[in-house]
């Protein structure tokens, strides 16, 4: 089974990377860019009995390691 996990900064958390990318895009002439936020993408290849147990396991991985709940949100999608 394949899953895609996206980890993003919570609203209000400073995102220096995102801001730097936005600035760089502006100076490259992409004036329409209003905001950029950078996050992480983690693709996991997983052996699991079924979708439900995969989801439970992926969720546990996020909470334990992949995301820091203090500043980050995460989302799990099975592909």
């Amino acid at each position, binding site marked *: 089974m394949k899953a895609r996990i996206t980890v993003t900064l*919570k*609203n*209000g*958390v*400073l*995102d*220096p990377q995102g801001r*730097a990318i936005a*600035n760089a895009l502006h100076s490259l002439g992409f004036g329409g860019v209003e905001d950029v936020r950078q996050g992480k993408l983690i693709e996991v290849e997983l052996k699991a009995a079924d979708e439900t147990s995969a989801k439970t396991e992926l969720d546990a991985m996020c909470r334990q390691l992949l995301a*820091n709940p*203090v*500043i980050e949100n995460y989302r799990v999608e099975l592909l």
Partner: protein
Amino acid sequence: MPATDTSVIATEELAAAHRMGAEEFRLACEKLGRAPNLTELGIISVMWSEHCSYKSSRVWLKKLPTTGPHVICGPGENAGVIDIGDEQAIIFKMESHNHPSFIEPYQGAATGVGGIMRDVFTMGARPIALLNALRFGEPDHPKTRHLVAGVVAGIGDYGNCMGVPTVGGETNFDARYNGNILVNAMCVGLADANRIFYSAAAGAGNPVVYVGSKTGRDGIHGATMASAEFDDNSQEQRPTVQVGDPFAEKLLLEACLELMAEDAILAIQDMGAAGLTSSSVEMAAKGGSGIELNLDLVPQREEGMTAYEMMLSESQERMLMVLRPGSEPLAERIFRKWELDFAVIGTTTDTGHLVLRHKGALVADLPTGILADEAPMYNRPIAPKPVPAVVSAEDVPAPNSLGDALTALIGSPHLASRRWIWEQYDHMVMDDTVVRPGSDAAVVRIHGTNKAVALTTDVTPRYCYADPFEGGKQAVAETWRNITAAGGKPLAITDCMNFGNPERPEIMAEFARAIEGMGEACLALEYPVVSGNVSLYNETNGEGILPTPAIGGVGLIADVSRVATVALKPGDDIVVLIGAETGHLGQSLYQKQATGRVEGAPPPVDLAAEKKAGDFVRRLIEAGITGTVHDISDGGILVALAEMAIAGTRGLTFAPADGLAPHAAAFGEEQGRYLVGVSRDEAARVLDEAKAGSIPGRIVAEVGGDAIVIGGEKPLPVGELRRAHEDWFPAFMGGKR
């Protein structure tokens, strides 16, 4: 309509939610002549917090010696300032970021480094070195590895990006830090002694300027919950962790230094804890002026921020300045060049009040005196515990083999090489690192000169727990010793006082006694305290940390070609011990290894002997007689010898003292001692001179071969010892331990 933060008048409950007791709340109302509104309560509560007011510690801190011929500015400013001659000054300070680093190790440690650097460059110095004193829980605690990885990466990434070398520090593991790690960062900067910038904003009618990054809702202190009750829009619990942006800080540093070269700044203060609140209050209170701010003009990262939020935000990489009127355009040009926010947000006044306006309304009006000098101060009860009796060497079991015990000690979490840590820190950038991490003190050359500073941080928390007075003395003395071992003349210290809950008399006693011990050492060694920081309430579920008064020391080296390092070098035939041998095993790492416990009184520090031995060793280095010196600390003589052998890839034969149990001679942790590598010819002369000065000394090892030879035991190849010493940390972090 949701209640705004000014229409709400504070109550005892609301004060409690701001961690302000009923008594203090009553006092605040009384001083103010009315109940504060929510914004005002927020301001008062942070200014009266332990962190800002030092209310439990101030009575004790006052007892520390803070003056000396080379002190330009002692405690009370952003950092301490000392004179190093040639119209140059060193500005330095150490600060804790313990709690944030436990919650989010990477960002917590990173912003700790950012904060301490701002303290130093606020005063006009370019940071030239960073150090870090770290305490983690026991290695096999499930959180430890994750915390070590995050803290080290956070410190590294921030300092590395700033281009300031991280040259030293210390790292301990102990179960008592399982629930409360300590992350103490020290920054050392270089300034022109005639161009130091202070925070007192005297005079009225001067523009108050905000520079740096925008203000967001970062780290709004423990009161977030309270304020959220009044905010209908708060679906998501706001993060109380600050995120650092080292790139913004690098720009802020360069911009500030550029403006400081002009004659434009009257006063400057970084926004650290309690951001805009503490910076504006402190500037006004110190200058005896008032300050009026229009919060509409504060650069904001988020929409709809309230006055309360802006005043309490701990967004990073910001500064507040009072400029000479008319210099705003010049200043603005410089900050724009560096692509930083710049805004005139208010003026100084002669009212003695902090006055805040937001969206046309007066949102706070507080006399600064209430917030600063008149903040509560406590003389909390103390209950010292008895000092344990001295443990005799016979009561600590001897090992089957000294060599095996040595190998185990040097590969233990307590003594294993910290290379895994310091290789993640750029310790060479700026091209002045003469002695890199891994020796006693790091040595950083003063750019473009032949002078250098020697830098170190030290404290032995287990000694402090057993006897806070001796422990406090020992911490100061150990920094003095490490600087001396590098060839430096110790000049002054900064401290970071990490303790548990001061409301518990036994904890308060630890604090008080440690201060007394530190003070005694400072006086005897002519080594004043010029800056410092207090971190209390390091407790989880009623269990406090070991008392940890971390000391950061700075010394001066007049000639950078006359330094010493721990590595045995080609001309070294003999290792001479300077200092006495009594075989003190109480509180030693050997005791811990042999018995699983540390017990008894810690080794006492004889300050007069300390000074004599140190001054003697320093003269040997200055005279070019030796370039190989190692002080003896954790683990005793045999461990120190092994460290010299490993660093220099040379073997030696150890000669334990007559009349002592061999394990006590090898691993006793008596204080005030050094190992000096010299040629055979010099050895006799050095011993004669020591004798003439009534300083104990003897030959403790002959250098040669590629193993450590201990009596009749099987020789220990230096390569094997090195492996034991170097492998532990990477294996631990790799999950292999």
